[in-house]
């Protein structure tokens, strides 16, 4: 008997390989920074994203230092104070962005490709990377803003739960604390702490430069050299320890809210995990599809328990979390936890239904062109590829790898990797009335 499903899959495979992924080129600057580049000549603009292995996993015993350093860097640099630098960028219509999470710290500029304007963008960013001022005023202002940001998180039951979940699951591992730090550590930072962090981690060997836009390879090479000319080569950040679950079981925190927020999960997977595609596709069936998933069906569609319910693996340098999230009125918290647990246990014992599995794969494969349809998306993808050392054809082969995942692989990977009896959880909310 001819397997019609196989035929269908083959046809989809043909249709998608016809839609070429962007052509990614890569090289190193003279100073040793990795460059990832895609030419995109249609719009007269350039996006640059520079990523450093300088996220909060590098905080050491100073929680929040990575984020603080990144935030102060963009204010004043290369002899320009915060007013002058902002004026210089914005009078040319240049957009500057920055941020830090656990693995990465990054800066972005978006500029018109017109040479005089692009020059200003690159020159300014080069100054921010190599010669940040760390002015006392900038440090105090950012300290105040970070402390207020922490207070805002402390009035959000979702933020409290997310933060406590990571801490409970990862314990003392560098992923355990929140990138935004703690009030005591933020109050204690001195200029020398920021300078030392900058010296150690903002170096060429620890950088990836992603460039997408209306410039040819030669111009991109020149741009990357200019951007990093004043960066010392330095060393790449050291390897992170392999995480192990620090605690299991559910912790309950009282908060005066009408809803209880539920965060349940485990240690998940790293970027280069051999089960990456099986777990990714499996989670798409289980709780990853935005309006279509098993968890969404059971918690939201069948029972009306929650508005926002989902699960994800967060693949990181070393294993990031697998997490299920929902929120419901306080009286329904226990019922919702039970439904989430049962749905996970059933998924693991039975595996995904054949039809759900096929459709999830069709969604991921057929949806690939949507994910690389703008310069902004492409620059984020190639920066990520450079950062995690993916091969250059990663985007080209992505749909084939998704296609190749079998239902049996998903079932096997979930059985080996997720134990519904050993979940770690944090539950934040009010008492059931």
């Amino acid at each position, binding site marked *: 008997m001819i397997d019609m499903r196989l035929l269908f899959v083959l046809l989809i495979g043909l249709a998608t390989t016809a839609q070429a992924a962007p052509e990614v080129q890569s090289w190193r600057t003279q100073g040793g920074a990795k460059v990832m580049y895609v030419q995109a000549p249609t719009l007269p603009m350039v996006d640059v994203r520079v990523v450093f292995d300088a996220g909060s996993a590098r905080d050491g015993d100073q929680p929040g230092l990575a984020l603080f350093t990144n935030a102060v860097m963009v204010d004043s640099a290369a002899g320009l104070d915060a007013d002058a630098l902002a004026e210089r960028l914005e009078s040319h219509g240049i957009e500057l962005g920055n941020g830090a999470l656990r693995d990465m710290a990054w800066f972005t500029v978006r500029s018109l490709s017109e040479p005089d304007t692009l020059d200003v963008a690159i020159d300014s960013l080069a100054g921010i990377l190599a010669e940040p001022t760390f002015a006392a005023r900038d440090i105090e202002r950012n300290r105040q803003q970070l402390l207020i940001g922490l207070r805002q998180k402390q009035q959000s039951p979702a933020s409290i739960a997310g933060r406590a979940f990571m801490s409970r699951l990862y314990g003392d591992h560098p992923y355990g604390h929140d990138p935004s730090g703690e009030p005591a550590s933020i109050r204690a930072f001195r200029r020398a702490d920021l300078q030392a962090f900058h010296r150690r981690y903002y170096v060429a060997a620890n950088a990836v430069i992603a460039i997408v836009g209306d410039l040819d390879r030669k111009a991109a090479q020149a741009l990357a050299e200019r951007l990093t000319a004043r960066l010392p080569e330095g060393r790449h950040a050291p390897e992170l320890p392999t995480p192990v679950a620090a605690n299991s079981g559910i912790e309950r925190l009282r908060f005066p809210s009408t809803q209880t927020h539920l965060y349940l999960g485990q240690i998940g997977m790293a970027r280069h995990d051999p089960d990456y595609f099986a777990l990714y596709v499996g989670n798409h069936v289980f709780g990853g599809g935005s309006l279509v998933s098993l968890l969404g069906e059971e918690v939201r569609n069948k029972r009306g328990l929650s508005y926002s319910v989902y699960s994800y693996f967060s693949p990181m340098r070393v294993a990031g979390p697998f997490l299920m999230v929902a929120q419901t*009125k306080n009286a329904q918290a*226990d019922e919702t*936890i039970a439904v989430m647990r049962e749905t996970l246990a059933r998924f693991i014992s039975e595996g995904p239904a054949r039809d759900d599995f096929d459709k999830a794969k069709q969604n991921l494969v*057929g949806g690939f062109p*949507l994910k690389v349809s703008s310069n902004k998306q492409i620059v984020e993808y190639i920066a990520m590829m450079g950062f995690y050392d993916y091969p250059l054809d990663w985007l080209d082969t992505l749909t084939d790898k998704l296609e190749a995942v079998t239902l049996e692989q998903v079932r096997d990977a979930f059985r080996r990797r997720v134990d519904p009896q050993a979940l770690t959880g944090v539950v*934040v909310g009010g008492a059931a009335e």
Partner: protein
Amino acid sequence: MFDLKLAGGLLLALSLGGCAALETGPAQTVPVAASEAGVTEYMLDNGMKVLVKPDHRAPVVVSQVWYKVGSSYEYPGITGLSHVLEHMMFKGTKTVGPGEFSRIIAAKGGSENAFTGRDYTAYFETLSKQHLETALRLEADRMHNLVLDPAEFAKELEVVKEERRLRTEDKPTGLTYENFNAAAWRASPYHNPVIGWMSDLDHMTVDDLAAWYQRWYAPNNATLVVVGDVTPEAVVQLARRHFGPIAPFDDLELKTPVEPVQHGISRVEVRVPARQSYLMMGYKTPIVGSGVGGNGTEDWEPYALYVLSAILDGGSSARFSRELERDRAIAAAADADYSPYSRLPDMLTLDGIPTDAHSTRELEQALLEQVERLKSEPVSRAELDRIVTQLVAGKVFERDSMFYQAMQLGMLETVGLDWRLSEQELASVRAVTPAQVQAVARKYLTRDNLTVGELVPLPIESPTATPRPAQGDQTGD
């Protein structure tokens, strides 16, 4: 720079995120208009508008169906109805089962969702271009064949109440924003939250929804916007095939209360458990189109107000960042927001968070001083140049997002304006003079026209320090 998240713009739109008909009518639908930026406009015989903007950068298409209905069409007792109906639009038609719409689109590799605002309800799909017809067929089907099942409604209403708890009840800045609008608007329906008051959600019935659907979901109350790797001719042919057979409605008349003139400052306080104070201020302002009927609003005024808001907060070189955050360190964050485009006159809002060394009252005073300076001194040429340069660049940058381009066209058309405004915006902003900025500041940014909302934190009993004893791993089993 560390950006603090403020509540500005919050809750203007809510997202869900949570049968081919026979061809009729004339063989061709000719364009009504086309524009320099490549937008082609059509009108189907049943009154449905179709806007198409080709963008061939990727083999992808964005399709959006916009309806002229949202919370500003609602009245006391039925608030939140438009938004609940948006949720129910995913719960099946005569031929497509509950949730089936989403499953079909997902299996085609697409993503879809919907959002409800004050002046619109919109549904969108993003797909590979060859699947556009699937999206249009399904959208046309739910435009006139929706099945409102009481059991599905009962569950979905609970989902929406959870959404309200998430966004408003348990979010101090969300609650402040809701109270601020309720205090500012006496008669205008912008008084009501998009998600509806909780008691209105409690009272809502499936019959309310059926009546609302009957009243507003019709081709002559909708606009289809398609941006992507398509040709206008091919899109309008598909639109005619699927939407063409749907009968228009006769009566779409809507009586909207007009906001009376305000005669003095309004203040509202929100005292709830929280950790951080927060301030909102708003001045009632005209919008593009306010001048129709000769009420003394000049056509340039909304653009002068746009420039005014950018003088204050158009980036980190603008006055709020430079003076209030950096020089005086009185604000940890300060925003100004104004949109020239809405269905009804709106507000120019200022909001912010005081630094620990200053009170909310001092921040308010500092914001008022900024407003007074706009009245007493003309803004500089350099500031105006910076705003125009940013807008020129922004117009290039926005072409990187097909979704955003479609949003702009659909929003302008649906709030009762004209999609061509997005192309004229730059010229309108360029034409604004320092004297005009000063004039709108004097005319609209007055004390008698002001509403102030303040979040006053009440203590939270240290939440992370006093856990209930952990109950192990067996909870709920």
